């Protein structure tokens, strides 16, 4: 694998995480528990679309075959998407979305802090913008963990259930593929493994402050880096790619 190939792959991973998470959050539109949260969740979705656009645009440049961000976002087959499986989990109820956002944003907070120092200036620039947004996403999900965890018996149960159900998809975030090892060596990418302890400490703090127990199950499911997804992914893509696939000649 050349450095260029590894960077392309790395950018697709980052871009796909943003793309798929934005898709799930955008499903909340007109379905929020209060209007303010409808707006907050779609606002986070908007941040992610912007980030996906920047990362996929840059991936296309690095690849050098003239693929636009849209072509990468809308025309790849399922096994060529490389997001973490947690991103494609269904939106679920509000507790599920909040728990998912906390688990992802905590990781992204650590990841993008590191990527701000990437030797690749474009990536560092994208990270610099992303980190400001991630801080807000993290605070938003943390505050809702407090409210749900310490709100009512029901809200505590639903949040606990959500954390339990999502836990097996969190470990994948800290894996290192061959492209990531190469990116680390080149001081472009980040050492995911080194983030795990800090991530766990941060997540534990928020959850214990929310009266939520850390799951004890140790099984982790992964596959996103290899393009092996959950059954959810095909459904996401069949909606997302519908117009691009049905009218391949059209420019929108």
């Amino acid at each position, binding site marked *: 694998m050349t450095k260029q190939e590894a960077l392309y792959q790395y950018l697709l991973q980052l871009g796909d995480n943003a793309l798929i998470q934005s898709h799930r959050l*955008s499903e909340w539109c*007109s379905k929020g528990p*209060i209007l303010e949260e409808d*707006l907050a969740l779609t606002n986070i979705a908007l941040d992610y679309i912007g980030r996906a656009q920047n990362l996929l645009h840059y991936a296309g440049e690095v690849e050098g075959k003239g693929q636009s961000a*849209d072509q990468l976002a809308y025309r790849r087959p399922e096994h060529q998407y490389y997001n973490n499986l947690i991103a494609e989990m269904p939106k679920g109820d509000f507790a599920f979305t909040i728990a998912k956002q906390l688990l992802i944003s905590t990781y992204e907070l650590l990841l993008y802090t590191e990527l701000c120092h990437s030797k690749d200036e474009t990536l560092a620039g994208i990270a610099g913008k992303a980190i400001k947004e991630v801080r807000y996403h993290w605070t938003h999900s943390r505050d809702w963990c407090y409210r*749900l965890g310490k709100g009512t018996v029901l809200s505590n149960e639903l949040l606990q259930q959500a954390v339990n159900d999502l836990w097996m998809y969190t470990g994948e975030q800290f894996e290192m593929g061959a492209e990531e090892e190469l990116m680390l060596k080149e001081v472009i990418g980040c050492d995911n493994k080194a983030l795990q302890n800090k991530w766990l400490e941060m997540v534990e703090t928020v959850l214990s402050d929310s009266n939520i127990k850390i799951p004890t199950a140790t099984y982790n499911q992964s596959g996103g880096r290899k393009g092996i997804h959950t059954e959810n992914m095909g459904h996401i893509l069949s909606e997302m790619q519908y117009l691009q696939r049905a009218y391949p000649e059209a420019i*929108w």
Partner: protein
Amino acid sequence: MDAIAIENAFQEKIDKDLNIEPKDQMPEKYRLHLIRQISQHAHSEVIGMQPEGNWITRAPSLRSKQILLAKIQDEGGHGLYLYSAAETLGISREEMIEQLHSGKAKYSNIFNYPSLNWADIGAIGWLVDGAAIVNQVSLQRTSYGPYARAMVRICKEESFHQRQGYEIMANMMKGTNEQKAMAQDAMNRWWWPSLMMFGPHDSDSPNSGNAFKWKIKRQSNDVLRQRFIDKTVQQAEVIGLSIPDKDLKWNEEKQCYDHGEINWEEFNQVINGNGPCNKQRMAHHIKYHNEGAWVREAAAAYQKHINELN
């Protein structure tokens, strides 16, 4: 002051074109008229999120998805300002939502039509928001201060929405034959309901009398509708869309377009619950409002807990 003295002092203010503010005394009928109108407006913004939200996960490009999401978010934001404006008149958002669910409060009829292809997103922005702007520009001078100020903010954003809607239509008319057909199909379905947004002809408009006297309403339904038609017909011609009205023609003498008769039978049917999406829109709002109840309860319980600690 007795009721008559209050009403006289109030009317004097109105006649001098002064704004009425929340703490000012006002006739009960004025207050109720405004609650009805502003809450209806707020509900329209919120229910309008549904037909547009229908296409978010299928938006065909990253840019179009971003613009659509941002637009819907604006509509939700307008709902928030308007609920707040109505709350200054002594009604809570919760009460307004109850009135929506019970059918006492209405929302704009236009959102009882379905969004069936991607060009509908263009048509909603261009025609529906375009019609709304004509009405809202006029409402920037409405007599109730909080409502007038909300309108100033809203108009700025709506004109951006209208432009993005027109851009979608224009791009589709430059595209493949299939795209052109989608755009014309959307035009055919949204044109007449957009004209209905201005309400009945002036001669049949039941709420206009006091609304003019109190300067809640500044221009009549027919005047505003004509303004919308005249500007929109030209925009349609520029991009090659035809208006689905065989009687539409330029009237040299009046310097405006004459149009065919609006189907008021359809208008009345939809207002009375028999439109393509009336039941669906309301069921959606009720379902997600109810599903969110436990979240609102948790937030309230948590807040109470925090207040007790402090």
